[in-house]
């Protein structure tokens, strides 16, 4: 707990590993994806009232991420049952992980936790195949950051 960053982890930093639940009986670790790029998308909450929200957009461009052989992973502090319902409702094609217990621990390790609101920031990380952060971006919490920045970062990995 002692070495938590006070801002978003920067490019060049090794991405902290994590092991978080994706379903009630399955967990996903970052290290499982070593060898391919990973896009980590921290977002504040499952049920946001915006039409075409951030996770739905990533769902639509899932095939483009695949062209870079990249894995996209969503993370919020919502519990796993909320994630299951949200994922089903939006027909998500990728995993969303629950940073629920200890609450926000992974987000804190990435410098992507909003203490005062008790939720994760809207923060994006592109991690290369060796587990090094190559791009990070903090979006205003109410603004869906889109996907152009992620795609550019993935292009720059090559």
């Amino acid at each position, binding site marked *: 707990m002692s070495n938590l960053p006070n801002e978003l982890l920067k490019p060049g930093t090794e991405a902290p590993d994590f092991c978080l639940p994706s379903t009630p009986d399955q967990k996903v670790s970052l290290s499982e994806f070593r060898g391919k790029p990973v896009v980590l998308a921290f977002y504040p909450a499952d049920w946001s009232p915006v039409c*075409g929200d*951030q996770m*739905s957009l990533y769902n639509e461009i899932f095939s483009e991420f695949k062209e870079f052989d990249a894995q996209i992973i969503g993370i919020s502090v919502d519990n796993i049952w909320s994630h299951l319902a949200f994922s089903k409702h939006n027909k998500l*094609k990728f995993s969303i992980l629950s940073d629920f217990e200890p609450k926000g621990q992974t987000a804190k390790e990435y410098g992507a936790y909003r203490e005062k609101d008790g939720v994760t920031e809207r923060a994006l990380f592109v991690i290369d195949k060796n587990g090094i952060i190559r791009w990070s971006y903090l979006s205003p919490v109410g603004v869906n950051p889109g996907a*152009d920045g992620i795609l*550019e970062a993935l292009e720059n990995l090559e």
Partner: protein
Amino acid sequence: MSVKKGLSLPVGERDWVTGPENARITLVEYGDFECPQCGKAYPAVKELLADFPEDVRLVFRHFPLKTIHDNAENAALAAEAAGHQGKFWEMHSMLFENRFNLEPDDLFSYGTQLGLDSVMFEQDILEKTYSKKVTEDFRSGVRSGVNGTPTFFINGDRYNGLFYKWDLSEAIKKYLK
């Protein structure tokens, strides 16, 4: 940064355009025929074109959020199919005015109402004849920072205001000064 980007794909021959060719303002809309917000913006945009008949032309590009809107992709394909029979904008209006009824049979009946060759029209939808164009539109939107619908660009700059006629008008007037 990423959300302030302009239009990545310039308006060209590939696009559906309505309004005068030499208009000083080109308004590009990335939209989804099943999206409630696009449906609300539609009358505002229509009135805007009527208010600035010489100065504004509109380009419509598809941004169907097809996993949350079941009929959005078919509706986009229908507009393209109608376009290839010379009636893109007629179908564009038809779809927005009937955005709660976009099942395949509804689409087919709109084709008939517009006097399209119904065999060709239905086939173009079912066989996704113009899906490459729809995907190109969508990807150009993603690259331009489009993160939801509708998203407008005025002369290539992203518009971040509300979708009411007054707000859009004021933004356009600034470009006309």
